[in-house]
């Protein structure tokens, strides 16, 4: 059966050249980059080459890159690390309603420690209003954390404008660029961010490597204490294999980005057009144009996302859903709800995230297998029954 992987937002497929580099490093064997001997110096060289490549992807200086084990850890280091570093300056932090749990949950921890957090809302496209961020600033505000792009609905936020209004108020901006970096052009200086999180598995690198950009002059208190790796900002023997993979993936993303995103956009638009034509009662979610190139996010009314996902899986198609039933907490995606999507409609959430391997044949295949699945589930659905009766009446 055809295997179509359209869940690159959960973890991208590995770039063949990244896999190749990692395989060759596996064969070579890697020592500890802190060691003074030859094998250690070679390991250090691999580490610093990767750092340079990741810095290059986002216009940063190498020493501004702190490697972590995931995007989640990078967000934790940014949020808790800056909160601890600046707690004597103030205890107020700004964020948005649609951040990832790796931003929201650390903030909840901080609230329990006496920090206060203001969450700015989003519009129906999932866009944060820079003016709302500006209004949220108090004399106590130490930083804001707003995502550059949302991984569930694909919306790209006006980070440059948000950084602009915050700069006037001398508030640092951390951007969770995990879903964005490597997929759209991201330059820390153009954006004006003080800190920014990335994750290799979002741009065809491996899981196991993330990075936090920390602008020179911005302080973060380490969240993992021990040795003096990563300039004293993150202890622990480095996962050099994953880090080297991240570096290579960053280099390739920078090089191949225009080509990749053109292809992704046209395939994504083709899939969107086919599905909206062949399936009725589909709601597109997220911003219609200001969005990640490979992301198609929608809600199929009268059916539940997990059921569609499982039937698609039986046809070899891998996607994700933000329905309550697919989440471990049994709550519908807070992102969809924050955008004002009706809770019942949100149950039909599906996210198709295309990657560099996606082909026209994949799109054709999904466009072919999806409508009968929806139809079958709707035939089973007591909600659709009502609608079809209403339509008939």
């Amino acid at each position, binding site marked *: 059966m055809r295997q179509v992987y359209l869940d690159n937002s959960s973890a991208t497929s590995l770039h063949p050249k990244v896999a190749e580099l990692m395989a060759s490093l596996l064969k070579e064997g890697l020592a500890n980059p802190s060691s003074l001997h030859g094998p250690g110096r070679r390991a250090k060289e691999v580490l610093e080459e990767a750092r340079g490549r990741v810095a290059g992807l986002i216009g940063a200086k190498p020493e501004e890159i702190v490697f972590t084990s995931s995007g989640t850890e990078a967000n934790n280091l940014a949020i808790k690390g800056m909160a601890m570093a600046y707690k004597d300056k103030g205890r107020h932090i700004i964020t948005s309603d649609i951040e990832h749990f790796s931003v929201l949950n650390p903030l909840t921890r901080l609230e329990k420690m006496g920090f206060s957090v203001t969450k700015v809302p989003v519009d129906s496209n999932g866009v944060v209003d820079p003016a709302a961020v500006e209004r949220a600033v108090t004399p106590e505000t130490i930083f804001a954390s707003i995502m550059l792009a949302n991984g569930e609905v694909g919306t790209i936020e006006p980070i440059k404008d948000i950084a602009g209004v915050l700069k006037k108020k001398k508030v640092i901006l951390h951007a969770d660029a995990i879903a964005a970096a490597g997929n759209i052009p991201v330059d820390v200086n153009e954006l004006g961010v003080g800190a920014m999180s990335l994750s290799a598995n979002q741009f065809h690198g491996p899981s196991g490597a993330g990075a936090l950009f920390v602008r020179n002059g911005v302080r973060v208190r380490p969240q993992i204490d021990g040795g003096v790796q990563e300039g004293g900002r993150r202890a622990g023997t480095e996962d050099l294999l994953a880090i080297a993979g991240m570096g290579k993936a960053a280099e390739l993303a920078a090089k191949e980005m225009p080509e990749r995103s053109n292809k992704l956009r046209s395939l994504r638009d083709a899939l969107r057009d086919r599905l909206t034509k062949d399936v009725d009662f589909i709601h597109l979610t997220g911003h219609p144009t200001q969005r990640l190139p490979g992301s198609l996010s929608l809600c199929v009314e*009268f*059916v*539940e996302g*997990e*059921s569609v996902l*499982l*039937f698609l899986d*039986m046809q070899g198609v891998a996607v994700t859903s933000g*329905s*309550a*039933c*697919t989440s*471990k*907490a*049994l*709550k*519908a995606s807070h992102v969809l709800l924050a955008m004002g999507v009706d*809770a*019942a409609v949100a*149950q039909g959430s599906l996210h198709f995230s295309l990657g560099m391997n996606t082909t026209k044949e994949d799109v054709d295949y999904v466009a072919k297998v999806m409508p009968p699945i929806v139809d079958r589930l709707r*035939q*089973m*659905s*007591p*909600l*659709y*029954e009502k609608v079809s009766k209403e339509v008939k009446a």
Partner: protein
Amino acid sequence: MSGPYSDKVMAHFANPHNVGELNDADGIGEVGNPACGDIMKMYIKVKDNVIVDTRFKTFGCGAAIATSSMATDLIKGKTVDDALKVTNKAVAEALGGLPKQKMHCSVLAEEAIQAAIDDYLKKTTGKGLNLKESSHEHAHEEEEGHEC
């Protein structure tokens, strides 16, 4: 491959039994809430106090569809009294178990059976079951909206 669901759940989900409506149903019960992700509607046909036929329609996840399918299988051919004894645990066990966070689907199936029988009894005797507030909704509130 280790999925969230047992093979039996997947089999019932992929090919559910008794899907559809009964035009001449003697009792119809609908439980659940679309915002929480699951609605089950159950139809029963009763002859001489025995459930001779049953159908369901379900909006929900794999477990919701599979438990609906299994619930209808379990009550078919049973007397109304025996059908009322089919518990959510029985449904879940018949499916080879459910993931913990999906047990509420089996609760919904139990409630759907009771709602359909309640409707049948109301129609035939004028007096339904003394159904408690949906335990499903209840659990919902208790856990501060954490679970639907």
